[in-house]
């Protein structure tokens, strides 16, 4: 039954490891962009640092998995400091330029031939997930009726959603506190907050670091999900998918990134499968003069792009956003 396959396939993706990765990345962006107003266009760079150093610690340097995790987190803090120190005193757009460039520099450097013996060049790294696999409590296929996962995938998404839940709770706790209020104040008008005696620079830096840490965790999951870490997983479009996820769910909403990620991956898989079915086989439903099978595989991106535009026009606050807040911007 095609319709059922369509739905179960989409649901599988919507709850699967990929959705976890983007939920984590978007939670980080939510802290930075949604609450503080920092335009970090280099979330993929933080993911690269996390994923690569976790993988290289085990695969290249023979260290423990946990040392790799600590190294990934530690270096993402260093990256946040490096990016933040020169740019956070300047206007918001400088951070955007610097981060997007830095993410690409990191990706190109880690994938370069010069560092081949450490990071494996364009092929990337493998054989680093053993500790994670050993921790897997699930030994058989997990079947929930409409969706089913291999034990490893289920362990990925199970542990991943737990981390997402922890992340959501942390963000919720932070954003209801006076600390979160200062961040929101900075988003609205940083000079006003400065005039009230708050060290705006320090708060922006804290926000950048926290968002970057979520990026690094997303990077760990990208690597584990593919059991391979290579430059393709952290290309620039990764950041923009994460932004789409955030805007879809609603920026500055605690659950925005999570719902956004689930909806995004449901829709994109649904569209992919749908057009796949339409154009499949020797005698497809959709005549070839309209669309070939190859062209159909691009339709999902075209329609997602269109959907994002419509979303920005008719519901710019995202799924969870508050209409009242938007009315204010019109003034």
């Amino acid at each position, binding site marked *: 039954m095609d319709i059922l396959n369509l739905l179960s396939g989409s649901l599988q993706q919507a709850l699967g490891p990929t959705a976890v990765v983007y939920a984590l990345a978007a939670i980080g962006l939510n802290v930075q962009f949604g609450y503080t107003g920092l335009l970090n266009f280099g979330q993929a760079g933080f993911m690269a640092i996390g994923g690569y150093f976790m993988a290289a610690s085990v695969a290249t340097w023979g260290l423990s998995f946990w040392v790799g995790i600590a190294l990934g987190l530690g270096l993402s803090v260093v990256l946040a400091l490096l990016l933040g120190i020169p740019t956070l005193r300047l206007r918001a757009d400088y951070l955007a330029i610097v981060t997007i460039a830095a993410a690409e520099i990191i990706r190109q450097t880690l994938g370069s031939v010069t560092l081949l013996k450490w990071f494996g060049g364009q092929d990337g790294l493998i054989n680093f997930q053993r500790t994670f696999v050993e921790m897997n409590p699930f030994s058989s296929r997990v079947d929930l009726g409409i969706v089913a996962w291999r034990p490893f995938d289920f362990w990925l998404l199970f542990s991943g959603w737990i981390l997402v839940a922890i992340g959501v709770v942390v963000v919720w706790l*932070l954003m209801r506190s006076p*600390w979160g209020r*200062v961040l*929101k104040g900075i988003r609205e*008008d940083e*000079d*006003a907050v400065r005039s*009230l005696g*708050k060290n705006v620079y320090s708060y922006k830096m804290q926000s950048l670091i926290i968002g970057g840490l979520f990026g690094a965790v997303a990077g760990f999951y990208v690597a584990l999900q593919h059991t391979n870490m290579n430059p393709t997983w952290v290309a620039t479009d990764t950041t923009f998918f994460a932004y789409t996820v955030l805007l879809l769910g609603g920026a500055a909403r605690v659950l925005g990134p999570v719902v956004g990620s689930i909806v995004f991956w449901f829709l994109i898989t649904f569209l992919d499968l749908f057009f796949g079915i339409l154009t499949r086989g020797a005698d497809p439903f959709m005549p070839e003069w309209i669309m070939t099978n190859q062209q159909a595989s691009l339709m999902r991106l075209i329609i997602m792009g269109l959907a994002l535009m419509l979303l920005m026009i008719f519901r710019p606050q995202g799924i969870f956003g508050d209409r009242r807040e938007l009315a*204010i911007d019109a003034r």
Partner: protein
Amino acid sequence: MPADTTAPASGSEYVDRGRAAEARKALASVEHEPGAPKPDPIVVADEVTRQFGGLKAVDVAHVEIQRGAITALIGPNGAGKTTFFNLLTGFDRPNTGRWTFNGKSLAGMSAYKVARLGMVRTFQLTKVLAKLTVIENMRIGATGQSGESLARAMFPFFWRAQEKANTERAGAILQRFKLDAKRDDFAGSLSGGQRKLLEMARALMVEPELIMLDEPMAGVNPALKQSLLGHVKSLREDGMTVFFVEHDMDMVRDISDWVIVMAQGQVIAEGPPDSVMADQRVIDAYLGSHHDQVLDFEEEEKILQEAQEEHVKNEEEAQ
């Protein structure tokens, strides 16, 4: 002395505690000259200059601001008043200069540290935090909040009591400024005048000793103007020093104890409102120095000839 910012018992805005008379008495013996020394200055600035390219926007040799008084800073457009404000509060860096607040040097200090010391400013273009509610705008103003440190933010028992106290204080100030009905509305939904009130109220949350208002009357309707005037006067009654930039001469005349006049970056006159407004230097600065001379034909010829001679001279020099 930290200001008493709780609402007056009577509910009226202005309780006369005789501070106006006190301030004027203290200033009575001060000479009406630019840079005149004051008996009890809260701010003393020396040689403060700020250059934008070839333009010296601020060039203040010496100025003192009397504690407990309302001091107005006036001057024609482009006189450097707002720039001077920005320099004093750390929002801009001067090319040269030193200034003190309560005897403590502020030169090179960041804006947020200046505010924490008790020198708090508002802005010409009101800066309310639009997507925060009015009460959240107020709460953010309180200083020394333990919940503002990342380590403690996640655990409400560290900051709940303080938050409650701040909220009560904020509520009392909002009531005084008649904004309590708007408490849970987004600040972005307030009118222009209400935003001015909220900004002033929020500045009080910092418990300033010196409050610096940059054009508090700009864009405020006449009805609200009266109530704003009352609020500013009541700040002095509560023991605060007020220093404000304003173009509205009625307001300056009505509430200020002392007026400092700036033109082309320099302090050109000082004194009580009436004496300053009659000062020839001030009139010249606002209206131009030849405004009262009638140019007759001969005079005009003379000026023209001088200009031509100078032009010829310059040409010759150039060759």
